[in-house]
């Protein structure tokens, strides 16, 4: 079977959807030459009216996309740097997201915001290394963080087809992931439905995006010690697949979440809150996150120290296995 890379999967989804629907177009900075490779080949294939290279004016082109969506189109914006989302938070959270309710359902705003290279990019320091998916989930914007190439393809397709604004975070750490894929089986993946990335019976580890790889590695390591780890990948941060999560935790009764966002009010905090409200746990759950208020420092060792990693996850899993009674 051919190998499909995560980044190529995003590129393929965008191209397939542009071919299928003439209302889909992509806009953003340096997308004609495909600076991030997300739009590779699309300019030659679809031309300048459908691959719209924009000046550096994030606020205007983000609202421009909202206007185009109100006129019936399905824009996809590529942001080259995750921190640019802070610049356009108003345009997404306060404009695009609110239009439908504020107009009493008179309109739809089917804009997709894609961020290929979210999170730490190793050596890009404070203003290029954010991973702000929790912010968008908090305000209720549909928020997607795919972990695998097939999911990157299927979730981006669903995001573009969705009639609401959707932010798709493609973590930098996942872009290079490749998997064997039968291209004929690539299909849309519904928003709000998680998956079991690895089955297990002793503890559920919730992981998103590139952290799914880390969770699987930790699960492998613990398997050697006779511990059975289930890895649950929610795929979409919002809406969250609470039922899928509940089904997993009902089997394992132990829970750890690894989350590449800041601790307070982050995605990890939400998962633990759901657990406290709904689940009968055998041990207090734990979360592995960036520290509160974290800004990624430049030096490699410092960058790594701020990100949630395998060692912390290993310690957290061992912690929930040894506390709160027998497994």
């Amino acid at each position, binding site marked *: 079977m051919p190998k499909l890379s995560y980044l190529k999967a995003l590129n393929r989804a965008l191209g397939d959807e542009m071919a299928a629907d003439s209302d889909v177009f992509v806009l953003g900075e340096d997308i004609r030459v495909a600076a991030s490779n997300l739009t590779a080949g699309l300019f030659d294939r679809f031309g300048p*009216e459908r691959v719209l290279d*924009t*000046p550096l*004016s994030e*606020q*205007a*082109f*983000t*609202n*421009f*996309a*909202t*206007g*185009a*969506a*109100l*006129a*019936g*189109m399905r*824009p996809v914006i590529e942001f080259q740097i995750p921190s640019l989302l802070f610049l356009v938070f*108003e*345009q997404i959270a*306060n*404009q695009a997201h609110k*239009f*439908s*309710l*504020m*107009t*009493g*359902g*008179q*309109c*739809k*705003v*089917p804009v997709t915001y894609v961020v290929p290279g979210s999170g730490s990019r190793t050596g890009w320091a404070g203003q290029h290394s954010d991973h702000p998916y929790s912010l968008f989930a908090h305000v*209720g914007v549909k928020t997607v963080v795919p972990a695998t190439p097939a999911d990157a393809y299927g979730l981006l397709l669903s995001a573009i087809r*969705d*009639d*609401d604004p959707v932010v798709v975070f493609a973590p930098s750490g996942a872009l290079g992931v490749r998997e064997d894929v039968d291209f004929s089986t690539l299909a849309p993946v519904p928003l*709000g439905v998680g998956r079991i990335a690895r089955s297990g019976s002793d503890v559920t580890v919730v992981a998103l995006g590139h952290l799914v790889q880390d969770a699987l590695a930790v699960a492998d390591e613990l398997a050697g010690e006779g511990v059975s780890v289930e890895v649950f990948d929610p795929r979409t941060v919002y*809406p969250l697949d*609470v039922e899928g999560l509940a089904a997993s935790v009902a089997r394992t009764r132990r829970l750890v979440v690894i989350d590449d966002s800041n601790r307070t009010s982050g995605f990890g905090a939400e998962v633990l809150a759901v657990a406290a409200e709904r689940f009968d746990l055998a041990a207090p759950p734990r979360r592995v996150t960036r520290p509160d208020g974290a800004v990624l420092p430049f030096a490699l060792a410092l960058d790594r120290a701020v990100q949630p990693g395998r060692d912390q996850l290993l310690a957290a899993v061992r912690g929930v296995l040894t506390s709160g009674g027998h497994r």
Partner: protein
Amino acid sequence: MTSVDLYRTVRLIRRFEERAIEFVRSGEIVGGIHPYIGEEAVAAGVCAALRPDDLITSTHRGHGHVLAKGVNPARMFAELMGRESGLNKGRGGSMHAADFGLGILGANAIVGAAGSIATGAAWAHRRRGRDVVAVSFFGDGAMNEGMLLEAFNLAALWHVPVLFVCENNGYATTMPVAGAVAGSITGRARAFGIPAFTIDGQDPEKVLAATTAAVQRARAGKGPTFLECLTHRLDAHHTFEHRARLSYRSAEELSAGWSRDPVEIQGARLAAEDRAAVDAEVEALLDAAAGIALGSAHPDPAAALEYLYASPEVMR
């Protein structure tokens, strides 16, 4: 568009606003409004130059634009009163009034935000082969918002059929233009290569003439035009202002503004009996509209988050 039609529009907006202020005082409208009194000629003149399928985006001071574009005043009153029969089913209120069927893409409460929305919408219609023009209304305060200047750049670069209509009423809330805008307002648009004109915003016929030329230019594919309409806000920034007892304008300044009341400027062009007939027609229309709105149902609290998402989702 006749002189009578233009008079009907300015008179309708004026009397709608005066009645809305009364509804704020009586508590039928909660939260207050931003009155457009004194600025009616801009909305009337601009919208008179548009086709029904042309688009507008409006501001937090948007009642005039929405009425001039043709909404049913009963549904507008009902929206201000938060009723289910309102334009937005009571979900938007004064600052978000929208009617997509009439090309009204919504009043917008974030100053300067809608310039780029109008630009995107106009661009999209052109791409779909329609010769639709979009107008974005904004105040002088918006001229200091970076995202509006970014929109000028996109519109000019891509020859988008959009009109930027600046209602320069002299104040951004209480901040006078002279204390806020360095250089000139039209100079900022011209810097992007956009033809920019300063016009008398108190005379509906002058506004109509200038807008007609700009619309023709846009439809001919020549891109955006910028109109600075010099106007006066003759009431408060917000109905709360009277209670807050803000003081930032002299009586002489207000009096000078009232001497150029657009309702009187346009009314003077009509025969007395024609003007009286329009006044009576407007009163009857607004009486009926207010009655319909007051008699409309309030939304069901259980539906508070209806319309949040296009697709039904189970949200916790």
